[in-house]
């Protein structure tokens, strides 16, 4: 992830990135599967954009994903040459939290740090609120 280049742009604090959508990928990200769907019987066609986007957004929890994150942890270099040692990392995280303005987020950092185990409630990540609209995109566009 290399988001650093945009991190310090913007007003005020400078930590909130405010990119303008310009490229094709940004626009697809914004418009894909959105908007009013008109029934097939009144429209001529729903021009497909599957070809452009079929692989663009979907990252599924697969072995490949797991291997990517396993590799990511191995890049961390927590214990040697140039890497911070663990107490330093934890110290930095606490400092980062304490200097912030926003209590909720600070508590989040502290709670995360205070926890000894991370694999309770393992499915929590999947139980976020479902998408409210546009759940029928495949069937809709393939009619």
């Amino acid at each position, binding site marked *: *992830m290399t988001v650093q280049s945009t991190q310090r742009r913007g007003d005020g604090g400078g930590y909130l990135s405010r*990119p303008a959508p310009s490229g094709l990928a940004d626009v697809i990200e914004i418009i894909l599967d959105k908007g009013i769907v008109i029934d097939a019987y009144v429209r001529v066609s729903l021009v497909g954009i599957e070809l452009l986007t079929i692989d663009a957004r979907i990252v599924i929890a697969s072995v490949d994903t797991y291997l990517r994150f*396993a590799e990511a942890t191995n890049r961390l270099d*927590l214990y040697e040459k140039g890497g911070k040692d663990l107490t330093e990392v*934890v110290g930095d995280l606490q400092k980062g*939290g304490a200097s912030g303005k926003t209590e909720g*987020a600070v508590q989040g*950092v502290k709670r995360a740090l205070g926890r000894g185990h991370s694999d309770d409630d393992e499915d929590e990540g999947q139980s976020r609120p479902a998408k409210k609209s546009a759940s029928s995109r495949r069937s809709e566009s393939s009619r």
Partner: protein
Amino acid sequence: MSSAVRTEGSDAPVAVDRGLWMYGVVPAGLTPPGAVGVDGEPIEVVRAGEVAAVVSWMSLDRPPGRKAELLAYHGVLDVLARNGPVAPVRFGTVMADREAVVEFLEVQEGELAEVLALLEGRRQFNLRATYVEDAVLAEIVTLDPEIRDLHERTRDLPEDASYPDRVRLGELVVRGLEQRGAEDAALLLDTVLPRVVEHVDRTASNPSVVLDVALLVDESQGDELVHALEGLAEAVHERIRLELVGPMAPYDFAGAF
């Protein structure tokens, strides 16, 4: 560009190889500013009762879904959104003729008018929160004994010797990310939700993405939201990056019916 013959200056389709590209629905009383749409054709307005569709003629004799169409569609909706309420129609929708557009508007007039009333004076922002991967991975490896063991066991082995352990390690890390993601998302939303009218979750299943939401915001609340998010972004910046796109047309708040 299409090789089909164009009939300049004529509104009527001369053959079945033309259709009306749909951009969005606006209040009938509102005259949209001029804009150039797909294929460089000017946008037109088709009215029915209280609502109107913004359209442009296009040739159907061409390969669909090209970059120019995406950018033209997005550009027109951007212009319309700055002018007043607009309910975007899904990208790629093409109607046979004006009668078909009028029929659609008449059948849906009540719902469309309701949506436009909801969108009046409001704009969409997209907020995305992404983990600073190394910082959060360090947290996870540090705090979970099983992950730490697997990490130490696999890091110096050749890839094929440690395959099952590496898969297991990655699975646990992804799980840790997802669990933190759910908790951090809830905390971020505590700051965001009091300042928005509505929100729609756009989160893709990418473990590094904490939150990806479309926000419908009163124009009068826009500055306040940005200000609050700047504070939030500073507070969490060592673990989480916040990105705010907008204001834009309310793509996520028009397709619910």
